[in-house]
């Protein structure tokens, strides 16, 4: 596939707790563990999972906002993780980030013009100040803000407006790849849709690729081309949106999807309620990391870690029993129910 834009191979990050003066070692936190996936040109890949599953860390690893512990990130034939700081800084022209927190991510003492023109200034786009002002005005217009806001400060804007400013900064250099870390999760529901639509329109317009990190599955369904599901630092299922939503193979994906609220009150739906809490990433269970909560757990799950394997149609699943139980939309609820009963009767948990 030559339309692959950026690809991660075996990417991992371990946060080691600070060792004391005498070399005492705390417990290491495995935030991201051996993640491999590709993002194609003009594609939106959504990364979903519970909070703490490492999705934000993964997004930052790709752009080296956090240094990875191991693995590779290929972009334009280069391994980003092997570039020097200065080389990586030059690459940032193409690789941008939209932050989750629209309040914290804009420097409180700077004007909107200064914030949006900072990337322009860094990469000498626009020779003179007036050229940059023109460009910033154009960018503000593109994100649906009045250019007359240019000399105001971030505190004068609402959350949605600030996120628009953050987006304007991200697209200022015409990047090829943008990581958006839960860009709408801190916004009002009414504003969320506006921002999501704005990002979609901009993507269509400019043709960048998107890694959209989210935990809201309805937002993901709206924006994504492909969906990757993360659990405890690993991708457990990845595939085209329709496949992941209609025929989820991994029991965790199934449970996640069953928790999405249904707008139709009469629709019959069984929720798969997972037992227990997510284990701490400082103490990831051996074998399949999901085995402590999986409704169909078997002995092999506790022993061997299932690899992420292709089911044949571009959908990849990391589950020992993925082949055994592909679910169609209709079967979803029933199967889940019978499986839960089966688990109860055999006492497999």
């Amino acid at each position, binding site marked *: 596939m030559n339309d692959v834009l950026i690809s991660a191979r075996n990417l991992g990050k371990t946060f080691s707790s600070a060792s004391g003066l005498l070399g005492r070692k705390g417990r290491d936190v495995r935030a991201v563990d051996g993640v491999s996936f590709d993002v194609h040109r003009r594609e939106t890949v959504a990364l979903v999972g519970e909070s703490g599953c490492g999705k934000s860390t993964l997004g930052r690893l790709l752009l080296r906002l956090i240094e990875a512990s191991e693995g590779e990130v290929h972009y334009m034939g280069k391994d980003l993780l092997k570039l020097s700081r200065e080389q990586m800084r030059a690459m940032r022209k193409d690789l941008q*980030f939209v932050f989750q*927190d629209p309040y914290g*991510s804009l420097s409180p003492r700077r004007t909107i013009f200064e914030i949006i023109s900072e*990337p322009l200034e860094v*990469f000498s786009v626009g020779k003179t100040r007036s050229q940059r002002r023109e460009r910033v005005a154009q960018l503000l217009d593109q994100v649906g803000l009045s250019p007359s806001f240019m000399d105001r400060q971030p505190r004068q*804007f609402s959350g*949605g*407006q600030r996120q628009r400013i953050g987006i304007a*900064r991200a697209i200022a250099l015409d990047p090829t790849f943008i990581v958006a870390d839960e860009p709408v999760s801190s916004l009002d529901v009414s504003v969320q849709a506006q921002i999501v*639509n704005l990002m979609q329109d901009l993507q269509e317009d400019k043709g960048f690729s998107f890694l959209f990190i989210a935990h809201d599955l309805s937002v993901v369904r709206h924006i994504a081309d492909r969906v990757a599901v993360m659990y405890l630092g690993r991708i457990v299922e990845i595939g085209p949106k329709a496949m992941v939503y209609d025929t989820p193979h991994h029991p965790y994906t199934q449970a996640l999807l069953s928790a999405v609220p249904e707008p139709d009150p009469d629709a019959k739906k069984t929720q798969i309620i997972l037992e227990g809490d997510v284990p701490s990433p400082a103490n990831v269970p051996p074998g399949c990391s999901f085995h402590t909560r999986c409704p169909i757990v078997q002995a092999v799950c506790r022993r061997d870690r299932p690899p992420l394997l292709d089911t044949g149609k571009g959908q990849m699943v990391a589950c020992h029993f993925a082949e055994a139980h592909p679910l169609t939309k209709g079967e979803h609820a029933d199967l889940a129910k019978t499986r839960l009963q089966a688990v109860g009767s055999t006492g497999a948990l």
Partner: protein
Amino acid sequence: MTALDHGAQQVVAPEPGKFEIVGKIFAGRPATVVAAFVIFAFILIAILAPVIAPYDALAQSFLRINHGPSWQHWLGTDQFGRDVLSRMIYGSRNSMIFGLLAPTLAAIVGTTLGVIAGYFGGIADRVISRVVDMLLAFPELLLAILIAAALGGGFWNIVVVLTVAFVPGFARVARAQTLSVKQEPYVESAIAVGVRTPTIIFRHIVPNIAAPIVVLMTLWTASAIRLEASLSFLGIGTQAPNPSWGNIIRDGLNNLFGSPWPIIGAGLAITCVVLSFNLFGDAVRDVLDPETNQ
């Protein structure tokens, strides 16, 4: 680009004035207003010393040694026959210069060290933090006496002494602030758009740690004046015959029962200025750095 206009709310808060902060410092605090007035008065006296002082502060005379207060010499004369009031007026220059210079220099050096330690971490942080901890273990006066004893008196030596005595405090505050500002998303977002490290430090870190540094500077102006007076009193600060409030008190001790006025005058001056700077510093802190106010 109307197609992309998804109806942003045109909500805009009013712009607060630049002088609002100054207004806030004085609002509802009569003591602060008085303090600012006292500071202003002493600064004026220091600047206009040659105009105001009735006599040459260094002119000695055997004819009027140890005189009490009179219409010619309001605070009397010292053991060399010098006019005490004139010496006090010239002494205010000393206090003001050290009071303003030492905290400023210490802020520059200390902030630089603190930001380096906080931003880069690692070995730089360890070295700087340990040295700072070591220096902080000494009370400022003791540290100042130690260094002054080693270097001797004189203008620049006192500047060095006071600066070194204050640097650790600034370094510690700057380091702590840098550590927290470094975690702010806007710093990460600057890194994400490719801003160079020096630009990040000067544009995104320093302006956002400035408030507590400024507060520390105003509060330590009082300490600097007090320390300089203490050192001069001990004879390791401003050297005779140059006047300083500290050595006026020291000279006054020789004739305490003949005329207590040099001690009372210089003591009052020190008290007034130190108290005023402290009050003013407290007010500045309340406005700029409300969180550290217990």
